[in-house]
């Protein structure tokens, strides 16, 4: 007879309308056998009572429907962000907010490195940093005898010391965009966008792609998930070559691996037939803990990088419109082929021209292959207005909005990219729900930190670091936001048969919280402690 466990909790928030709240959940074979009060165990024979969660609040395990495998592995580099964060192994890294604090941390790290070995740091965000813009002279205080590289939180910029500039061959004659200078005419040490960062990265063999590969990256990703209540997470642009796939299958099959991984096959650069064949082939190798078959399609760039494709009136400063990743005609044939093969697409669209274009392409694909439930999902979809949400609902298209952007880039959007009026409707969660669109919200970790409660907090409060509220009418209730990080997110991945809510038959995946989000003040949502997770009935709480 399989072990049957009855967990009691202070409260269980189920996301199921039949029984929104409960105090007990019965678990057998990794699945939920019953939900309700203490009486639910009676019909099921012998049960073991487990009261370790009696003071905790259980929610469906969080589903991060837009994150990346790199999340855990980045901690191989030295964290230099401004907020306190736990690394996947549980060490607390206090935020650094001044140059002196940062240099101190670097010097301590350098003392542990071999002579001449480069120091690579990450997590630095100039928007949240006091004093002068970071430059090479600051970093020269950490070291002059080795390259020091600070990758910014956005991953679009880095600041390096003089030794790194020398190593890359940068000098007075350098004349490329994205290599700014100090007032005295010398190079500043900031390198903007990949073209400018490339000479440093290739000489240090610094590849963020490689960082995402291999067993350790997967293990660390799993640990980071447990800390943030996540039991299912996407790796939303995966190559899934045979080596990587074998490793994924073996790591996720381990008895102690705590995370269901949903890799989205990156199909940009593939011919449509190749993409279809590859996606079907990997889908056939799926397991409960490794769900494959969804495809990631890129269309435009980013709003803060001025590379997103925008509808009129475009960017606030008159910057030229952004760039397509692929010719629109090719995008259409790729979308038609994947849709025609019954494959689910997760489509990166930041600007509203891109999201409108993708809706066009999906609608055209549906003329040939009508379907009521493809659940293609617009990822980010930050600028969509009422018209596009309405259309998405009618086409059965879901959205996964980038709620964390409201906090991390909200002020920049008001002041520099689109202005306060359009910033107010960015990531319009309320519009999505009111139009009947299936809604998920995300962190795009590591672009912003993994942490669904923070993402939900953004959707509920829509506040910026400068204290603005961006579009008060677009705020969600706490329950709606929690839905978007659980059942809503599961639906966008077509996994809601198994996960996303606490109801008999689904996987016993829970987020274990130290307090009740439905009784705490909405502005405190992100401060609620996450004690760990239960994943497939296995407890991952310290």
């Amino acid at each position, binding site marked *: 007879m399989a072990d049957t466990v009855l967990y009691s909790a202070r409260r269980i928030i189920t996301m199921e309308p039949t029984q929104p709240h409960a105090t007990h959940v019965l678990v057998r074979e990794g699945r939920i056998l019953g939900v309700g009060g203490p009486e639910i165990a009676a019909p099921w024979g012998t049960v073991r009572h487990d009261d370790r969660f009696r003071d905790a609040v259980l929610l469906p395990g969080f589903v991060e429907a837009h994150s990346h495998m790199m999340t855990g592995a980045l901690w191989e580099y030295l964290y230099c962000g401004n907020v306190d964060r736990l690394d996947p192994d549980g060490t607390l890294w206090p935020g650094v907010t001044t140059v002196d604090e940062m240099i101190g941390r670097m010097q301590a790290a350098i003392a542990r490195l071999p002579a001449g070995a480069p120091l690579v740091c990450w997590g630095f965000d100039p928007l949240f940093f006091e004093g002068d813009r970071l430059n090479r002279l600051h970093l020269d205080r950490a070291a002059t005898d080795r390259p020091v590289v600070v990758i910014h939180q956005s991953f679009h910029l880095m600041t390096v010391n003089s030794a790194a500039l020398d190593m*890359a*061959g*940068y000098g007075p004659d*350098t*004349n*490329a*965009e*994205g*290599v700014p200078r100090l007032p005295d005419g010398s190079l500043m040490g900031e390198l903007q*966008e*990949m*073209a*400018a960062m*490339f*000479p440093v*990265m*290739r000489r240090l063999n610094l*590849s963020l*792609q490689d960082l995402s590969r291999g067993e350790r990256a997967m293990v660390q990703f799993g640990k980071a998930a447990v800390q943030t209540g996540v039991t299912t997470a996407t790796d939303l642009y995966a*190559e899934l070559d045979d080596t990587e796939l074998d490793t994924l299958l073996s790591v996720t099959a381990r008895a102690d691996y705590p995370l269901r991984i949903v890799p989205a096959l*990156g199909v940009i*650069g593939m*011919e449509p037939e190749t993409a279809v064949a590859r996606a079907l082939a990997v889908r056939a190798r799926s397991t409960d803990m490794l769900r494959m078959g969804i495809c990631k399609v890129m269309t435009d760039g980013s709003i803060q990088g001025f590379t997103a*494709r925008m509808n009129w009136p475009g960017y606030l400063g008159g910057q*030229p*419109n952004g*760039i*397509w*990743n*692929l*010719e*629109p*005609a*090719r995008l259409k044939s790729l979308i038609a082929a994947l849709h025609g093969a019954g494959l689910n697409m997760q489509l990166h669209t930041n600007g509203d*021209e891109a999201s409108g*274009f993708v809706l066009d392409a999906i609608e055209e694909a549906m003329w040939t292959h009508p379907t009521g439930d493809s659940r293609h999902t617009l990822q980010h979809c930050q600028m969509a207005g009422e018209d596009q949400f309405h259309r998405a609902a009618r086409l059965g298209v879901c959205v996964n909005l980038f709620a964390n952007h409201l906090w991390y880039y909200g002020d920049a959007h008001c002041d520099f990219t689109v202005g306060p009026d359009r910033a107010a409707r960015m990531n319009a969660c309320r519009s999505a729900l009111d139009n009947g669109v299936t809604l998920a919200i995300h962190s795009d970790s590591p672009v912003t930190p993994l942490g669904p409660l923070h993402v939900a907090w953004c959707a509920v409060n829509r506040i910026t670091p400068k204290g603005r509220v961006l579009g008060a009418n677009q705020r969600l209730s706490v329950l709606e936001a929690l839905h978007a990080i659980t059942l809503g997110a599961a639906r966008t991945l077509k996994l809601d048969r198994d996960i996303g809510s606490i109801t008999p038959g689904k996987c016993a995946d829970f987020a274990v919280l130290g307090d009740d989000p439905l009784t705490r003040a909405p502005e405190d949502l992100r401060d609620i402690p996450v004690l760990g997770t239960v994943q497939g009935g296995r407890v991952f709480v310290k």
Partner: protein
Amino acid sequence: MTAIPVTLISGYLGAGKTTVVNHILSDQHGRRICVLVNDFGEIALDADLIDNRTGDTVALSNGCMCCTIGNDFYSAIDRILRMSPRPEHLVIETSGVADPFKVGQIALAEPEMDLRGVIVVVDAVNFANAMTDPFLGDTLRNQLATAGLVLITKSDIASPGALKSLRVTVATLAPEALRMVADHGRVPSELLLDPLPLRLKRSDPHAHAQDHDHDHGAEYRGWVWTGSARADSAALDRLLGADIAGLYRLKGLVQTEDGGWNAFHRAGLHAERRAVDPPHGQGRAVAVGLAGHFDPAELQSAWDRVLDHG
């Protein structure tokens, strides 16, 4: 290590970039050129030209190679820079929506790369239509604004009206770029790989176009000869000094009557000829001249008279 010269070939889907690339790869120019493309799909190489083929690289018997970008453009560039021996020239065929201004930055930033020019391919039949595409028009404008050389394809099958209006569009959007008619992609590779005026300091192409309603650019036609015939050195010298209408540049490498090899070069009024070591391949001559003045057929006749057919 010396920097590898880099030329970008840009242009929208269907403009004829691949035809140009095919021509560069199979042309007998004697240089080890590496072409980086999005995929091999449309590259049509003669099977007997292919030396060997591994995942992302096709090596050709003429010393050239063709690589695909694969998953990541930057890793592909890094792979090429690590090759030993390194190719003599890198040609990057950008995607139809790429902004060559952005792509070019990599070759400006990386000290081991030396950006020589941006070529934008437009086709005389479809360009006007493509420009009206709301999703693409601005991308095409940006591409043209970056061009050092605009290659016009399909002029042989375009209506005279379409060709005329294309010339006006190009002159407006890329007033300082050279233009060359390149039906079927047939332009001597040397001319494509020569340093071009760099236009990678773009601030605002729209404002720039408004300031310039006149046309600084000029349109060229090309001519090329490859063969093993020997040249008569006296006749060659006469040709180098002859009055040839519209000729802008003539250069080549040819065996003369005594069996020695000579390199020759003529630009404007300046001309020279000197003895050189024998090359690996055949003799070769290329020329470029102003369209409307320079007649490739006339130069071909003159060249036939230089060759020693005895």
